[in-house]
C-alpha cells in the first residue's frame, strides 16, 4: 500500500440481493442484481484473500439475506482461512438449528440478527413478511453456541416507542451488543421517509433512554445508538470518511465506497472480476473522487470539523442538494439546512402518527 492511502479495515460483502424480507427501509439500491449475476464462491474467496492482504480485518457478510446463498458455509470458511473476522448480518429467516451449527463449525465469529420491532404486528408490517416469531426461535438456538450475538434494531417512527421492550428482548438473549440504528434516508427508506421519520419528541426521549440504558447495562451489553442525522446539528462521518475505512462489494462484484454510491451520477465503479481489490482501493476513480479534502466546497473546505465528519454524506448531498460535492444538507453550518428543517416541520406539526393505520408503504421487492 502507498503511504498516502489508509488501509481499508472492513469489507462489506453484499453476497446477494435476494431476501425473504421486504423491509421498507432496505439499504439495497432500487435496482437490484439478479441471482444470475452473483459472484461465484471462488471469486468471493479470492476477494477475501485480497482484502486481508490490503489490511482488512473484518468481513461483514450481508445482502439481501446472505443465507439465500447455498454456499454460505464455504464462504465463511474462506473468510476465516483468509484471516478475516467473520460477521454474518442476517434476518435469521432461512436459519434452522443444523444450519446454524454448520456456520459456527465453519468459523463464524459474530452473528448480527436484525429485528424490525419488539412486537410481532409492527415487525411483520415493516418487513412485509411473517418473520418475527422465527427470529425468537433463532435467539434460543444461538444460546447453544459460543459465538458473539448482536441484536440490530432499525429505528423509525413506528417502532421508536418500543425501545424498552427491545432492550428486554436483548437481555433475555445471549446478546453482548445491541445496535439501535435510526433509519438512514436513501433508496427504499428515502421513498418511505414521510412515514418513517420520527418526531422531535420521540428523538429526544429516545436519546435520554439510550444514555440511561448504556449506564445500566455497562459491562453486560454494549449498547450502540446511531442518531437520526436529520435531527443532528452536524452530519455523520459517513462510512468513516469516503475511501478511508470501508469497502463494499455488490453481489455482482462492483466495488463501492458506500451502500448508496450508485446514485451519484458520473462515478464509474470497478469490478473485482477485472482487478484486484487492493488496486481498486488505491486507484479506482470512484474511491479517489471524495477521498481527502480537495473536492470540498465552502463551508466544509475551511471548517474545523472537516476532519471529524469529512463533510458528511455524499449520497445525501446528491439526494437533497442535487450535488454530491455539496456540504451534507443536514449540517447546521451549511446553506441547505432550511430544506431539512422544512421537512421536519411538516412531520412535527402533523397530528400524532397513527401507528395502527397502515401507511402506503413502498415495499422492497425481490430480484429475479
Amino acid at each position, binding site marked *: 500500500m502507498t503511504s498516502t492511502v489508509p488501509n481499508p*479495515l472492513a469489507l462489506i460483502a453484499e453476497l446477494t440481493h435476494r431476501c425473504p424480507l421486504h423491509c421498507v427501509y432496505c439499504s439495497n439500491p432500487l435496482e437490484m442484481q439478479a441471482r444470475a449475476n452473483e459472484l461465484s464462491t471462488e471469486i468471493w474467496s479470492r476477494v477475501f484473500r485480497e482484502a*486481508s492482504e490490503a*489490511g*482488512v*480485518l*473484518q468481513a461483514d457478510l450481508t445482502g439481501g439475506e446472505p443465507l439465500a446463498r447455498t454456499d454460505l458455509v464455504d464462504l465463511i470458511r474462506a473468510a476465516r482461512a483468509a*484471516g478475516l*473476522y467473520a*460477521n454474518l448480518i442476517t434476518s435469521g429467516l432461512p436459519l434452522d438449528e443444523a444450519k446454524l451449527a454448520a456456520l459456527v463449525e465453519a468459523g463464524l*465469529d*459474530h452473528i*448480527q440478527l436484525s429485528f424490525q420491532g419488539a412486537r410481532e404486528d409492527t415487525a411483520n408490517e415493516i418487513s412485509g413478511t411473517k418473520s418475527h416469531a422465527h427470529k425468537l426461535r433463532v435467539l434460543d438456538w444461538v444460546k447453544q453456541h*459460543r*459465538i*458473539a*450475538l*448482536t441484536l440490530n434494531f432499525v429505528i423509525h417512527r413506528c417502532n421508536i416507542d418500543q425501545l424498552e421492550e427491545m432492550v428486554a428482548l436483548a437481555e433475555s438473549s*445471549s446478546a*453482548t*451488543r445491541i*445496535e439501535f440504528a435510526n433509519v438512514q434516508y436513501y433508496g427504499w427508506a428515502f421513498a418511505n421517509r414521510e412515514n418513517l421519520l420520527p418526531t422531535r419528541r420521540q428523538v429526544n426521549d429516545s436519546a435520554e433512554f439510550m444514555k440511561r440504558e448504556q449506564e445500566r447495562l*455497562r*459491562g*453486560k*451489553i*454494549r449498547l*450502540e445508538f446511531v442518531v437520526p442525522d436529520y435531527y443532528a446539528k452536524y452530519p455523520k462521518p459517513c462510512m468513516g470518511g469516503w475511501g478511508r475505512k470501508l469497502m463494499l462489494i455488490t453481489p455482482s462484484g462492483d466495488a463501492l465506497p458506500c451502500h448508496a454510491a450508485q446514485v451519484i451520477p458520473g462515478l464509474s465503479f470497478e469490478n473485482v472480476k477485472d482487478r484486484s481489490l487492493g488496486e481498486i482501493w488505491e486507484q479506482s476513480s470512484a474511491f479517489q473522487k471524495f477521498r481527502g479534502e480537495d473536492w470540498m466546497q465552502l463551508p466544509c473546505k475551511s471548517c474545523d470539523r472537516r476532519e471529524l465528519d469529512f463533510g458528511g454524506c455524499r449520497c445525501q448531498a446528491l439526494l437533497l442538494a442535487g450535488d454530491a460535492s455539496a456540504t451534507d444538507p443536514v449540517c447546521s453550518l451549511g446553506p441547505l439546512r432550511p430544506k431539512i428543517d422544512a421537512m421536519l416541520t411538516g412531520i412535527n406539526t402533523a397530528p400524532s402518527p397513527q401507528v395502527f393505520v397502515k401507511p402506503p408503504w413502498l415495499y422492497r421487492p425481490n430480484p429475479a
Partner: protein
Amino acid sequence: MIPDPNSRPRLAPGCRLGENNNQRVLLMPERALRLNGPSLEIVERCDGKHTVGQIVAELQKIYSKAVPEKVQEDILGYLALLHDQRALDFDL
C-alpha cells in the same frame, strides 16, 4: 468495575486474537484493537487460566524497571476497559 485479583479473565464469545501484516489485533464485534507491548502481554494471558493477580505479577517481572504499583494500576484499568467493551468475561 475493579477486577477481582482471584478472577480469571478470558476473551468473551466472538473475541479473539488475530494478526494482519505482522500487527497483532484483538478482534471483536464491529471493532478491532491494535495490540503492542504491554497490551499484547495482557491479552495473551486472558486465557481463563491466569488469575488477574498472576497477570499482574508476570508483567511486573517483564517490566521490572517500571514502578510495580503503576504496572498494577495500568493492568487493572486495561482489563476494566476491555470488560466494558464486552471483550472479557471473568471466571471466579
